[in-house]
């Protein structure tokens, strides 16, 4: 009967549409649920990354990975389980449209052909009830409700962009390194720019000076380990190396810029090192003051930067108002005192500097070892024969006083020479024989008096020799360089 055949085709067509809609919704549901799970995991990880501890983040990352895998597998299984064939679609349509199993019976009749005189009646009844099983009625939603969960997850993820990073926890006092020569306490002195550098963001402003490297570059290789130790870890030898590198590549940049994740590395690298001369931890302060006064340093023209620096913040701004002679005397007295202290500190440091380097090289982890092998930061030798910074600095050169127009040559030598020419001139005037200094090679961060050039020094300079030979942290080299540059300008 053609009419019945046409009716059957119509029923099958409609059933096909219903099936397609149902399966589409099923697939959408699975995808949405899976995506919701993945986005939820990412959101949790974001929150933990910003607010939580590293251990919690690590645990959440593993759990999140498991959840993601489980969600994907679950989604696939659900899609496979809910995927409807024609018979199942007919059953569902029967139930939802209250067709009293008419569709199922008809589909079964089609799949199991047998004489069925009543089949035309069945088709006719289904067509008469076609209003009840419109695809829109059976599958009213083209998009499953799980899309709301997906949207909510996306909103939650977007909301993490407004979340602020938790400030680093203050380090325990016992975390401070011990005995490393030239160690500097940075605890409690880190300011916002430093923390900004911790998170790897651009350290705009802060202690950077014109011509300095962007502080953001300092965050290369920084890890959460460095963040954990930030703010309190002592600066070890690795910091010395790193700071020297910064000083070389970025003249004029304050050493504080290097206060980054390498602190933690340095702290780790110093683990197990038994440094003699633990009482010399205060040496940098004295050295700094001594250097400043020995060279009649003027106060920096940016007090706010000095204030930001832990070691320069104690400078008395009222000093320029004093009598010049008294000031010079006092500075000379202080310098003498500082030289004595430096001489005392130098003896153990000689034995510890290189040893510390070796010990550090042995104890450092792979990453730190890699950093140590950075061509810009290996052991550096300052022989003192190079043209001095100060007034001898060429514009745009490495020791440009203003720190402007500095062109960082990537092929530049990895070491620089700092020669205090005033000493040389004085020696030439006095006619004293230059003292043959002990050649110290391979001591990172130390400033040797003269490694290749024999320089005659006068008595006063001889007294300064100990200071010259003292291991001066690179940041103080930078201070010296700046002070000299300022004087040269004047």
């Amino acid at each position, binding site marked *: 009967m053609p009419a019945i055949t046409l009716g059957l085709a119509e029923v099958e067509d409609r059933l096909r549409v219903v099936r397609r809609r149902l399966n589409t919704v099923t697939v959408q549901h699975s995808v949405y649920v899976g995506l919701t799970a993945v986005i939820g995991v990412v959101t949790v990880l974001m929150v933990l990354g910003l607010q939580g501890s590293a251990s919690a983040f690590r645990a959440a990352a593993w759990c999140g990975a498991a959840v993601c895998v489980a969600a994907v597998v679950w989604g696939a299984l659900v899609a496979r389980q809910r995927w409807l064939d024609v018979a199942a679609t007919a059953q569902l349509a029967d139930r939802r449209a209250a067709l009293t199993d*008419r569709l199922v*019976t008809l589909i079964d009749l089609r799949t199991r052909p047998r004489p069925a005189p*009543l089949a035309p009646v069945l088709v006719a009844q289904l067509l008469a009830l076609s209003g009840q099983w419109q695809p829109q009625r059976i599958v009213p939603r083209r998009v499953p409700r799980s899309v709301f969960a997906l949207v909510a997850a996306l909103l939650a993820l977007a909301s993490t962009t407004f979340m602020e990073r938790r400030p680093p926890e203050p380090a325990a006092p016992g975390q401070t390194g011990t005995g490393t020569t030239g160690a500097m306490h940075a605890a409690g002195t880190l300011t916002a720019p430093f923390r900004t550098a911790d998170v790897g963001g651009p350290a705009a402003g802060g202690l950077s000076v014109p011509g300095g490297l962007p502080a953001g570059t300092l965050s290369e290789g920084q890890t959460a380990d460095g963040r954990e130790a930030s703010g309190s870890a002592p600066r070890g030898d690795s910091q010395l190396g790193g700071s020297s590198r910064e000083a070389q590549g970025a003249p004029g940049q304050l050493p504080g810029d290097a206060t980054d994740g390498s602190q933690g590395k340095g702290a780790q690298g110093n683990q197990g090192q038994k440094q003699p001369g633990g009482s010399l931890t205060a040496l940098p302060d004295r050295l700094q003051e001594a250097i400043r006064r020995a060279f009649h340093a003027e106060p920096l023209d940016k007090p706010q930067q000095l204030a930001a620096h832990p070691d320069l913040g104690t400078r008395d701004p009222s000093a320029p108002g004093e009598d010049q002679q008294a000031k010079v005397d006092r500075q000379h007295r202080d310098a003498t005192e500082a030289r004595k202290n430096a001489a005392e500190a130098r003896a153990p440091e000689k034995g510890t500097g290189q040893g510390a380097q070796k010990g550090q090289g042995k104890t450092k982890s792979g990453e730190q070892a890699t950093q140590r092998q950075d061509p810009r930061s290996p052991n550096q030798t300052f022989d003192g024969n190079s043209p001095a910074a100060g007034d001898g600095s060429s514009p745009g050169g490495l020791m440009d006083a203003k720190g402007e127009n500095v062109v960082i040559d990537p092929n530049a030598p990895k070491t620089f020479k700092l020669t205090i020419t005033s000493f040389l001139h004085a020696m030439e005037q006095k006619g004293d024989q230059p003292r043959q200094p002990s050649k110290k090679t391979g001591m990172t961060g130390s400033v040797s008096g003269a490694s290749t050039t024999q320089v005659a020094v006068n008595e006063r300079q001889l007294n300064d020799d100990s200071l010259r030979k003292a291991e001066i942290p690179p940041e103080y080299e930078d201070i010296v360089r700046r002070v000299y540059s300022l004087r040269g300008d004047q």
Partner: protein
Amino acid sequence: MSVDNPQQALREFQGVFERLRRQLQRVIVGHRDMLDQILVAFFAGGHVLIEGVPGTGKTLMVRSLGEALNLSFNRVQFTVDLMPADITGTRMVADSNGRREFTFVPGPLFSHVLLADEINRATPKTQSALLEAMAELQVTVAGTTYKLAPPFFVLATLNPIEMEGTYPLPEAQIDRFFFKVVLPYPDHSEMQSIIGGTTGATLPTVEPVFARDEAAAHVEALRALVREVLVAPHLEEYAAAIVRATLPAGSKFAPPGPAPLPLDEHIARYVSFGSSPRGGQALLLGAKVQALLDGRVNVTYDDIDRVAIPALNHRLVLNFAAVADGIDPRTLVERILHAARKLRH
């Protein structure tokens, strides 16, 4: 009526059924569900066992059905001394053209509608005389098989309160009854109608629905239509699961393999033997009639559920514990149906 025009056949079926129901209700007050069950069994081609206390209209109901169908009707009052030949017929010596020869004289079994009144009062031997006729529509007497003219419909009544001198029906006999219909006492309003309607000057009569010469053929056509009703596979599975659930697990006749439904603890405790496959046949055939009555040509779950109790309650053989605890087979079937709802898609 022909199945070639199925729409017309469907309407014809519904019309006949309704007319029969209306005629029976002229003489039978109340018991509408019981009347429907009897008619369902009739159009499904089964036989009905009616159980009820005396005076509830069992015999009147059967006699009225025969009159309404306008089919041949016989009534046999079963007693202890009733012999099988009294039912099936016997060979008698007859004089034919001067020669004496045995001639088969058909018994009351040879009719379209047979009322076996108080069937449990006959001996099992006599009761068994009905087995072949009910199952195969034939009678074998003295080595000769005689076919019964379709439609053949047996309505047997049981008196449950007078057990003295009765013989319980053998299980094989009971299993051959399509439905077992229990006639309860009429309620108050029905009792009032019965009293008022049967004590007047004129008694209500039943008008035949079919003409006598075409009644049998008409009924057979309707029965054929019933068997054309479509059943989806999952409904066949549903009916089979219900039947399977009546079988106690401890029985040595229990089929192997897991049951679709968990075994009900009442079935395990109170049932000795469950339903036979005839129970499943009764479920589906009765459901088909129900579907036609509902204007459909396909069976649904509800159709099966509606006929489950009359189709299965007499097929559950209860043990002594059930009798001691007063367990009704109907409650067991209802429990099975409740458990089977989870099989519905």
